[in-house]
Every structure is written in C-alpha cells, then in structure tokens.
C-alpha cells in the first residue's frame, strides 16, 4: 500500500480524535509549567524561611521534601483542573501555552537548583 503522503488528507483510521479542540492540551501544558514553578518556589521558600520549612515537614522521616513535593503536585492538579474547565471547548493554540510553560519550567528548575536556593538560607 502506498504511504499517506498528504498531511491534510482525511485518514479514516484517525477517527474523531484528530478534530478535538486543542484547549485541553493547552491547559495540560500550562498546568505542567505551573506545577514545575510551584516546586521551585516551595523549594526556595523552605530554604529561606524556617517556619515555612517546618510547615512543609509533613512527615518527619522525609522532612520538608514531603511538603514541597506534595504541595507542588496539588498545585499542579488544581491548576490543571481549573485550566481544563476554562479551555476545554476552546480551539486555542498550544503554542503560547508551550512558551509560557517552558518559561515556568525554567524558573522551576532554577528554584530547585541548589546553588540558587541555598543562597537564600539564613546566615549561620
């Protein structure tokens, strides 16, 4: 069988999924950025503030990492749910969502980078 050489040609095997609105995908991509950013913020805040570090210590054997990661996952899931409700039927392009998300992920990585967040540790 000859390969399908026309990207625009309708392909029966694709079903209706190909025509779904892009909004939910944009919401998922944006939410991932929000989650990554939240992890970076929580990591840096825990280093900068002893009360926040104690607040994030949900489980002593794990320490504040328990609260940082649980908090980031909750923020990610809530952001995803809210953004999904906003964008679920909208044909928005995910290009802007990816750009915003990559910036947020970059900030999140900076926030989790030891050289950065350890600079906020109180002087001993």
């Amino acid at each position, binding site marked *: *069988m*000859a*390969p*399908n*050489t*026309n*990207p*625009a*040609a309708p*392909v*029966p*095997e*694709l*079903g209706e*999924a*190909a*025509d*779904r609105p*892009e909004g*939910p*995908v944009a919401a*998922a*991509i944006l*939410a*991932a950025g929000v*989650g*990554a950013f939240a*992890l970076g913020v929580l*990591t840096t805040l825990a280093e900068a503030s002893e009360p926040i570090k104690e607040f994030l210590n949900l*489980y002593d*054997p*794990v*320490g504040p*990492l*328990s609260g*940082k*990661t649980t908090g*980031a*996952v909750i923020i*990610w899931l809530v952001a995803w749910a809210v953004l999904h409700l906003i964008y679920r039927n909208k044909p928005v*392009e*995910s*290009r802007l969502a*990816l750009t915003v998300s*990559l910036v947020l*992920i970059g900030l*999140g*990585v900076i926030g*989790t*980078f*030891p*050289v950065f967040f*350890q600079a906020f540790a109180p002087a001993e």
Partner: protein
Amino acid sequence: MSFTHHEFWTLIHGMVLGAVFLLGFAGGLEGLWSLRPHLMTPEGIRGRALRLKIGVTAMAVAAWGTVLTGTWIVYPWYREDVPDSPRSVLLADPATAQWHHFGMEWKEHVAWLSPILATTVAFIVLYYGAGLIRHERLRKTTLALFVLAFAFAAVAGLFGALITKTAPLL
C-alpha cells in the same frame, strides 16, 4: 547472593522503575518522531498510535513510581540521623560533602518534574491518539516535553547512581 531490605527498595526505585522510564525513552522518542504522514501507511498509523499510547502511559506510571518510592521509601533511609546513613557518610568528609549539598539536593527536587511532564505527554497522546499525526506543531510540542521529562529523570538517575557508588545504602 541476597539483598538487604534497603538494597531491595533501592533496586526497585532505580534499577526497575527508573530504568523502565529511561530505557523506554528511546522507543517513545522514535514513536513520536516518526508519527508523520509521509512515513506511515494508514494501517501503520493505528498500530503505532496504540503502541505509543501504551508506551507513554507506562512511562508516566514508571516515573511516578520512581519518585514516590524514592521520596517516601528510600530517602528516609538516606537522610536518617545515624552515623552510617549515606547522608552522614557523605557529610563527614569534606571531599564528599558536595555529593549531598549539590547532587542529592538537586536530584531529590528536580526528579519530580519528570512525572509531571511525562503525564502531560501521556495526556496529549491519549487525547489525540492517532490524530496527533495531523497536528505537526503539537507533535513537536509533545516531543519537547518528552525530551525534558527524560532530561530531568536522567539528571536524577545520574546523581542517584554516583551517590550510591560513593555512599551506598546498605
């Protein structure tokens, strides 16, 4: 030949769940990369999409399994306040202290970005299925997120292996 309880869970964390994610990356990357109309027959698209759905979903599950076992099972043993815990061993020697201050501190945080991004990739693939072949820009977006998920897991995996080599969890 036997493993201690700690060694068993370290293996599950790194060599089973973590390795499944890292090794699965090559297959997922190829699947996403070649999901293009001029490379595939209509019959091939359907089979490829099904394998891709199963593959990226399994990778997301493996990524979550890796960080959950790492953070909630293995990490407490690593940081235990006893002289022979890996953290204590590393910090006792100035020559190895940076493995904790930089390596472990980065690994334990940045690893969590991987399952979040892997889940996003799995959602996109499950949402569009074979239809992703018609969304060239979105396919590239998915590829970018997939590569990032791998990169963060690779950083965590690399530091995990090096730290375990320097101060094994026994």
